[in-house]
């Protein structure tokens, strides 16, 4: 079971969290023109890196905050976690 540091609550076990996928995909702004490619990249295409991976988790059975986590997908080592409002 992963041990994830919630930037708000501290070290917590994985089963308090739910996974949210790639944290680097940015939703295109509302009411702005978006090219097909950009939209497809946002909705479907993923790098799914081997190694350092920036991803989202929600502390769903904790403070319910979405957080950003940098984790090694090859070793599961977690390097850092930050708040939703911070960049990772």
């Amino acid at each position, binding site marked *: 079971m992963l041990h994830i540091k919630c930037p708000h609550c501290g070290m917590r076990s994985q089963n308090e969290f739910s996974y949210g996928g790639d944290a680097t995909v940015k*939703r295109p702004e509302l009411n702005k023109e978006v090219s097909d490619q950009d*939209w497809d990249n*946002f*909705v479907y295409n993923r790098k799914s890196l081997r190694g350092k991976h920036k991803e*989202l988790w929600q502390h769903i059975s904790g403070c319910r905050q*979405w957080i950003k986590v940098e984790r090694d997908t090859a070793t599961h080592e*977690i390097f850092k976690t930050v708040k939703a409002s911070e960049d990772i």
Partner: protein
Amino acid sequence: MTQNYRLDNIGLINRDKKISFKFNGVTYFGYEGDTLASALLANGVHLIGRSFKYHRPRGFFGAGVDEPYAIVQLYRNNETEPNVKATEQELFEGLEATSVNCWPSVNFDIGAINNLLKIFLPAGFYYKTFMWPKSFWYKVYEPFIRKAAGLGVASIEHDKERYEHKYEYCDLLIAGSGPSGLASAYAAAKNGARVILAEDKPRFGGTLLTSEVNIGNQTGKEWAENIISELKEMPNVIVKNRSQVFGYYDHNMLVMSEKLSDHLPKTKKYNPKQRLWYIRAKEVLISSGSIERPLVFGNNDTPGVMLSSAAKEYLKVYGVLVGKKPLIFTNNDSGYETAIEFKKNGVDPIILDTRKEPKSEIIDEAKKLDIEIKFSYVVVAAKGYKKVKSAEVAKISDDKNELGTLENINCDCICVSGFWTPTIHLASQSGNKTTFNKDIDAFVPGLSKQNETTLGAANGTFTLEETLKSSFETGYELSKKITNNDNKTSSPTVMEKKSTTHDKFWCVPLPKGKTYKRFLDFQNDVAVSDVEIALKEGYRSIEHVKRYTTLGMATDQGKTSNLNGLQLVSNIENKIVPEVGHTTFRPPYTPVTIGAIVGREVGKHSKPTRKSPMHTWHEKNNAVFVDAGVWLRPRYYKIGEETLFEGSKREAKNVRTNVGVCDVTTLGKIDIKGPDAAELLNRVYTNAWLKLPVGKARYGVMLREDGIVMDDGTTTRISENHYHMTTTTAQAANVLSHLEYYLQLVWPELNVNVVSTTEQWAGAAIAGPKSRDLLQKLFPNIDASNEGLPFMGYLEADLFGVHARIFRISFSGELAYEVNVESDNGNFMWEKIMEVGQEFKIQPYGTEALSTLRIEMGHIAGSELDGRTIPYDNSLEGLVSKKKDFIGKRSLEREAFIAEDRQKVVGVVPIDKKTSIPEGSHLVKDAMAPTPNPKLGYISASCWSVEYDNPFSLAILKDGKNMIGQKLFAMSPLKNKTIPVEIVSSHYVDPKGERVRS
């Protein structure tokens, strides 16, 4: 039976407590503290089972977890457990066990016919035969082979035992209570660290229980006992025996299975049989010791051939002689220790040492005791079928290639020692890249991957002095790092006999003309020749060799066989072992009861159940419940012998004619507050929300970014900045997360708070032509008229002294209202509605009637919103705003989504107006067409229209909008039904929606 092989002056068993047990129907006696294995050996029983492939006789090879042979079927407290290791199972009064994998009996085993055929069963045998004729494999051969497979018998009875879990945290977790475990635990505990010390055996102390050493003027055993009793007294220490740390997972999470009752005749009431510990440790000390390696020679699987360390353990711990004419076959000094113990206890052993002229204190002592030693000698083959009768031995040349003339030595057991293999499983599981240590011909842990440190024999350190020194040091250093205390315990003085280096030789060559099987994996019958074949056939990766030969894949997971397998591969390949590399060590270290892994979430409680505040009322009124996710909802309220069809029809009809009440508490409710609440809704829903007046509700649809409908429901504006959102029961949790995602990550500039109030409010839907009259009676102080409370209107009022919210919304398509009160008052509300509703012929209705009502009204629900449809498919395109942007809008422009012949929800009526159309049927043009018959769409929901008293269904149909009026066939081959149908509008009843507005 008498315990002929039991000595009465040695061992740690309790001779005051005699225990009777049965093996294969025969009653024997042993003592408290025995294992099944030691007790059987005490009684001279060596034949215990049959091997997997050839069904060769099997005895005991080890004395613990590494045991490949002694697998039994255990009977305990009217339950039976397969594949129990006799060497691990402690004896208890009334224990019964039988051999596995042999029929009709262990002495006469029909399967042994395979043994005579063994020449035909080399590695990969199955893959190259049994192919012809076609289909014979699974029709004839496979069933036959399956019968022979498997070890014990699994009863399909439910398990009556309890298994529990525990989450624990500590500074140091120490796996193994041998010298290194005890020393490091003691040093760390003394320095204030929170320590957990785990020992898989019943007794603490590991090798200290059997070795002749002296620590601080105490025997090793005494020292161990004193340390343990001191540790047990310390509040910062948890000491657990019968507890196996079997897995090292991510972020220093280790899992341990504690056996609390397996050694008892039955589990104490209310107590678990086993407890699974999830342990998060800051530091992990692996002191799991090492396992003796076999030497490989002809028929080395004969009962009576066993590890010399096991023979010593049976002697010193259990007071049992594994033989009275022991032959010790060793390539190192360990064999001598065993021989010395035999000698001290009045038995004359013979030692065959593969080495030429080794010199050491231990060897000198053996010589002093006049033990017969033959140097440069090997066992060529064991003789005897069900038990060793003698050994064929020979001198071996210095280069270990030439055997001298064969001689025979009478013996009743052969104790082998091929030196030691460190138990590195946990280290390897943590991700540690192990390295090969040439001095000991074995792998040892390399650089730590997680916070693990390996000590003592597990790390390839085989002298007690070094082990204790490094262990005390490590325990102190690590604890200091964590606690910042500086309380150092120093290592005691140690006296042990020095040993000399071992011989790398481990596999005895075959004498000319002999075809003895030389086994590597004893349970799976993998011999040297099998590995040779695998390599000949081009399998290079050790993982392939393992799978092809099944080497190390038995229930012992190759604890005694893997390394010899590697050595063999490397010999043949002319590589060094590290190049070959070992197969991955994966949890569990030793098999773990599945019940223990699962814990208490079994039976009715395998998943939580959610219930509404009115649940008890429903139960009292014969509700038949249905699972809606993890919620339980009334499906219909059974009257007499009513079937589901009859009951739901009655309830639905009553809604259409009078009034019905339905528990809608399960619908998701989200309280939305904040200055930007309207803006959030406007971005989340496909329709416009900025102009919704206070006191009004509106229906909305929300999409995923890929344009697929995520959920629908009504949201009501309670006050300026306060909205009450409802979701479907199924999507409630997802929608809340969805909103939080956008508020926290995408639009943090919005000042909005969302919180689930699903359980805050109990909800009752009142539907039917008489619902207004009922409402007026329930709330005399409100104006319930169409003007006072119009469609999609909202009011707050007093229900007999209880605060209530009234929404005029409808799912049934009838004139309807939804009343919410705080959950504590839910039951009160419900009873009042039923009471006041009597005069209007009110009846409660369940989800079945509810779906009937919504289907004939053409209201879409879960079966249409199945995560694969877009608004258009559900005839919701009218709700999709052209003006504003919203989540998922961009995806709706995609080719397939705007295709002219896009699927759409339609109504379906059987031509004969009688035959109900099974849900899951498909619509086709030509019922006679050959397969594959092109499918135009499928029936998503069916009901019996209470309005028109004939069957009606909804379907998702290709080009639905142009299919109205068409005649098609609804086909359900599964139910042998082909029904001519007509496609009609999905709004079958009240298409203009006048009733809800009336």
